[in-house]
């Protein structure tokens, strides 16, 4: 019980501390490749701290959704970070770390965002929400299927147990099942966190927006929760992917040395993955909206093949 609490606290503190830095690393890598200096890796920290100091401005006649949706997104992202084996694979006592629980918590944040987009009643907000829900409908089955494929050799659908069994049995890392599933998962993470080529986080054109279009009407503290909440989702999903792909040095229990090694290892893995993601984005243009379902369908096929293959391999 105590161990579980320690692990959850470590996960939350780790996620909260590393997330703005990750975003800062991504922005700096992009700026450097564009020939700029960039704001530095702590700039996102300054941005969110400033947002929390500002009064939220809500349109007259808006409903409580405008207030609650950002908090719901933030809360769901925090639960996500606590449940996903970012640092330690200790099975949490009394808290289900099942694949289905994690996906539904993810969906809760998505729905909060979509409600927020609809709330303002503007054309762009509704457009963003509908696009976001289309992507979600295509993304969720792939998440489920690809992790399901990885769960076959582990014999359980608890994420922590899957990561642990992959860490202990390295032979499961390099086989077609694992490679296909990880490839599908990477596409899904990119789509779910609104990165290029699915969505452009730096766009100023309302017609091309997906994530930005939903949060156009939030300001001040509300925006702070929204930004931090969606960044945490990036950390959680990226962390899950890197820990499934390269599960070395993830802590197996709640001892201090193991946790320290786990924190260091996950930091290195996350920063490397984020830098790689940002570097690849420089070479990509945003896909046409109607091509995105093709990309996501492709990732679903990969996940499906991976599930089929897992019955042949194991």
């Amino acid at each position, binding site marked *: 019980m105590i161990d579980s609490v320690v692990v959850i606290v470590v996960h939350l503190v780790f996620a909260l501390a590393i997330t703005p830095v990750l975003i800062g690393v991504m922005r700096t890598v992009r*700026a450097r490749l564009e020939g*700029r200096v*960039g704001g*530095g890796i702590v700039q996102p920290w300054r*941005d969110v701290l*400033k947002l929390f100091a*500002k009064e939220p401005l809500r349109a007259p006649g808006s409903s409580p959704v405008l207030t609650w949706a950002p908090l719901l997104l933030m809360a769901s992202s925090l639960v996500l970070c606590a449940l996903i084996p970012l640092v330690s694979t200790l099975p949490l006592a009394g808290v289900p770390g099942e694949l289905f629980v994690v996906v539904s918590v993810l969906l809760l944040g998505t729905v909060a965002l979509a409600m927020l987009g609809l709330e303002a009643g503007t054309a762009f907000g509704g457009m963003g929400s509908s696009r976001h829900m289309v992507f979600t409908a295509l993304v969720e089955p792939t998440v489920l299927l690809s992790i399901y494929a990885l769960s076959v050799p582990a014999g359980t659908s608890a994420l922590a147990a899957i990561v642990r069994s992959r860490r202990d049995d390295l032979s499961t890392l390099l086989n077609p099942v694992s490679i296909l599933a990880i490839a599908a998962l990477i596409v899904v993470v990119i789509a779910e966190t609104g990165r290029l080529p699915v969505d452009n986080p730096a766009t*100023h054109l309302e017609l091309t927006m997906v994530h930005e279009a939903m949060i*156009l009407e939030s300001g001040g503290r509300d925006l702070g929760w929204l930004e931090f909440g969606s960044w945490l989702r990036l950390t959680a999903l990226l962390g899950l992917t890197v820990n499934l792909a390269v599960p070395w040095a993830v802590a197996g229990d709640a001892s201090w040395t193991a946790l320290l090694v786990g924190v260091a290892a996950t930091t290195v893995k996350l920063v490397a993955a984020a830098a790689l993601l940002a570097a690849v984005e420089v070479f990509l243009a945003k896909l046409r909206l109607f091509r995105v379902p093709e990309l996501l369908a492709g990732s679903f096929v990969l996940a499906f093949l991976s599930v089929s293959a897992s019955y042949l391999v194991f």
Partner: protein
Amino acid sequence: MSLTRLLSMITRTGTMTEPVADAPIEIREGFVPPACLRGSAQVRHVDAGSCNGCEIELGAAFGPVYDAERFGARLVASPRHADVVTVAGVVTQNMVEPLLNTIDATPNPRVIISIGDCTRGCGVFAGSYAVAGSVDDFAEVDVHVTGCPPAPEAIIAALRAVTRR
């Protein structure tokens, strides 16, 4: 462009950003930049009727050579996300309401920066029937950038007066 050509261009170019030169700006008497904007200011730009000369310079200020982002300033897509409203040009009859709405939609504490000579005394457009007045007639301007068009250095200096970096 092929991937290898793009890569070689990126490595050949390196970092373009130049150190900033100082430039004169006019700060309103008694203006204290809000404490929470130290190191981070999101900018929403309003073209209230400019000839677009100012917009080109503003674009340059956020480009690779001047790179306003290194001082914590960033352009955003919605006034709700902004801390700083920059206005360029004379205020035309049709832009009075959008300008006031944009300023109202920006959460407090906010800063208003006027860019270009047009925003003080209407410049070459003074007296036109399409012009409702200059920015000073409609809002309290905190920082004014002189020049027609102003140099990107001056725009950067104005943004740095807010972020103090």
